[in-house]
């Protein structure tokens, strides 16, 4: 796994840790070698052992030490022996984690997790990706297959959640349209009349900002700013959805602009969902719309001014 591939996964780990109130600074990451947690009565990653165990890791790959808030397996292999109890959360983003003893929370984002007959997961086992091999005798207190759940949460299978999304966006769209429809009109003008430049700006800025915030997160010092930045990016996307709703609403036989925008926003979300179901081209279409909307918001300064392209004489 290359740094570029593993960095986004580590970011997710950092965000999960920060969200749980743990200290990301004391997190340990294993990238290579074979390691066994616990050993000689020491406390490793919150591990207590009832017997002797050994570590054969190579230099620079200490698998845990006292005060570590979490262990991330990014490469190599880590084993939790049968006589060991690990309380700190474990993350698998690459490599192999083999559990024979007792652990707390485990989250698998990539890589391989093996639970033997004697394994006990006393906390939560979250599977977001990767491979999980579980013996019949393994005990798991709580388990969620996030990928499976996400796949299950299609509008047809979870209509309530989808209606909630539609309703929330319609509400936001209606409120903005009522308070300041000129904002939406300015962004909408860029979407319709300057789609190419909006799409170019949106795709480059959106992608570059995303990578920038990911890299900022790894300074740890800037982790809060990174979270804020990602939230702002998400907010811009939502705002662009509202703009698309406003544009659709203008075509509806509804006089009140707020009601029309609210209805349009709802229709847009439904349309976007349906578009995503078109094989191959659907996802591309969704990405294109998001890029155009994102760029239109940026080049109009969130709708505060109309975009004026440079004048070229001749």
């Amino acid at each position: 796994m290359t740094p570029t591939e593993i960095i986004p996964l580590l970011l997710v780990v950092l965000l999960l840790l920060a969200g749980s109130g743990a200290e990301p600074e004391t997190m340990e990451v294993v990238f290579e070698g074979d390691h066994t947690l616990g050993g000689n009565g020491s406390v490793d990653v919150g591990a207590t052992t009832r017997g002797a165990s050994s570590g054969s890791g190579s230099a620079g790959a200490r698998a845990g030490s006292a005060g570590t808030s979490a262990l991330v397996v990014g490469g190599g292999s880590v084993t939790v022996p049968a006589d060991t109890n690990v309380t700190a959360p474990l993350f698998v983003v690459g490599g192999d984690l083999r559990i024979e003893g007792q652990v707390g929370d485990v989250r698998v984002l990539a890589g391989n997790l093996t639970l033997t007959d004697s394994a006990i997961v006393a906390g939560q086992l979250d599977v977001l990706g990767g491979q999980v091999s579980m013996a019949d005798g393994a005990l798991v207190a709580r388990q969620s297959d996030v990928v499976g759940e996400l796949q299950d949460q299609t509008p047809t299978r979870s209509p309530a959640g989808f209606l909630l999304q539609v309703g929330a966006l319609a509400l936001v769209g209606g409120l903005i349209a009522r308070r300041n429809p000129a904002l939406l009109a300015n962004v909408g003008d860029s979407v319709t009349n300057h789609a190419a430049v909006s799409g170019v700006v949106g795709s480059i800025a959106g992608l570059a900002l995303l990578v920038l915030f990911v890299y900022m997160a790894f300074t740890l010092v800037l982790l809060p700013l990174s979270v804020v930045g990602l939230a702002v990016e998400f907010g811009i996307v939502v705002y662009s959805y509202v703009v698309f709703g406003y544009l659709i609403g203008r075509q509806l036989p509804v006089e009140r602009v707020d009601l029309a925008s609210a209805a349009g926003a709802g229709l847009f979300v439904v349309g976007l969902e349906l578009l995503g179901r078109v094989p191959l081209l659907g996802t591309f279409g969704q990405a294109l719309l998001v890029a155009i909307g994102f760029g239109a918001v940026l080049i109009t300064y969130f709708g505060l001014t109309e975009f004026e392209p440079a004048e070229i004489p001749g």
Partner: protein
Amino acid sequence: MRFVDHVRAGEWHTVLGYLLFVVLMTAGYYYNVTFVQLGLIDLGTRLVGMDHTAVSTWMAALALLTFLVAVVAGVTMDRRGWSTDLRTKLRLLFGVLVVQFVLTAAAPHIRTVPAFGAWIVTASAALGVGFPVSFSLAIDFVPVPDRGPVAAVITAATYFLANAVPVEWSIGAFSQLMVAAMAPGLVVLGIVAFELLSPVEDLVDDLATQYEAFGTGRFCHDVPVKTRSLGFVAPVVLMFGVFFIDSLGFLRIIETPALILTSWQSPEFSTRLAIAAVHVVGALMAGVLYVNFDRNGLFLWVFALFGFTYVLYTSDLRVASVFPALGRDAPSIVNPLFYSLTVSFYTTLNFALWPDLSTAETIGTHSAIGVGMAGWLATFSSTAVALYLDHAEVGLLTHLNLVNALALLLFLGLVVGIYVRRMAAAARRNEQPTEPPEEVSG
């Protein structure tokens, strides 16, 4: 696009002018980025037997000589009125192509340092005359509003061919390909330049007057940009910075097998195709931005992308130095993809900018100084710095870190420069006396 209007109006001579310009510039730039930049290194090190430092020194000499010849050629073109004489320019270009054809065919047979030196000097003269002449054809062939899109097409076509078409990075392979491609081009250009067929004579007649409509560049319509004005010097300095940074970084990247063998020289066709596709997308994006943003905005985009690209490169290297296990895998393709995007951006800008900063009377001088300073003098300078860093045994991370620092510095400098300029303008507006409000008399 005006191109569509010309097609609809059946103005086929103008349409052919577009095509001729795109083909000439694409061929010239492809020759430059492959044969000159990559082939000569192979020729010097493998066939002549020089060490890498000596070849780099000769390459720097080629860049400096080309720049000097170009300035002389460009100024001469403007002073003698050749810039507005299409026939003269086409014949000059034909002469350049003949010389380059002979040089290209002869290159793989060079075995001694003096022969290599003579080759470099002759090539410098040909290139130095060739690029101001070819850039000046923009005023004859391309309407001002279409310069951005045309520049994008040239960039996209060049980099797509350079990356997607599998050619071994050796002088022999480059020479064979170039000779095969140049031979028919030479015949066609000869027919056009010397008007050997009567339909061609009519075509050249029509094209020869187009400079009257297309000659005044985008940034010269209100007031022509003078050579010694800030309006010209500032873009020259900024483009010098762009090419310098790119060259300084790329010179080190191509010397690092782990970086180059997994990207531009990857045995995987899909990898090279991905890079080629990103070049095309990047060039088209730059074309869109060129027609929608002003000069400041365009340069900000380029520097921001450069800074960002090197942040990615250096961050990867830092992570790999902290966790050596990660560095053992093949480097990510993401970094060369961003690099390609950035290169397409500034190349597109370079193709469109100099004609747009010129009139029909200054196109020779401005393109010679602009492209010469940015493309050739920057290459000369960056090669010299790269050689110094090489002698000082500076590591890869430190080298790229320096490049990254320069990119970020230029980005910040540009932001501050634009801001201060606007602040000064606002201050000037405030200093202007305002008329007192009229008293309301009862």
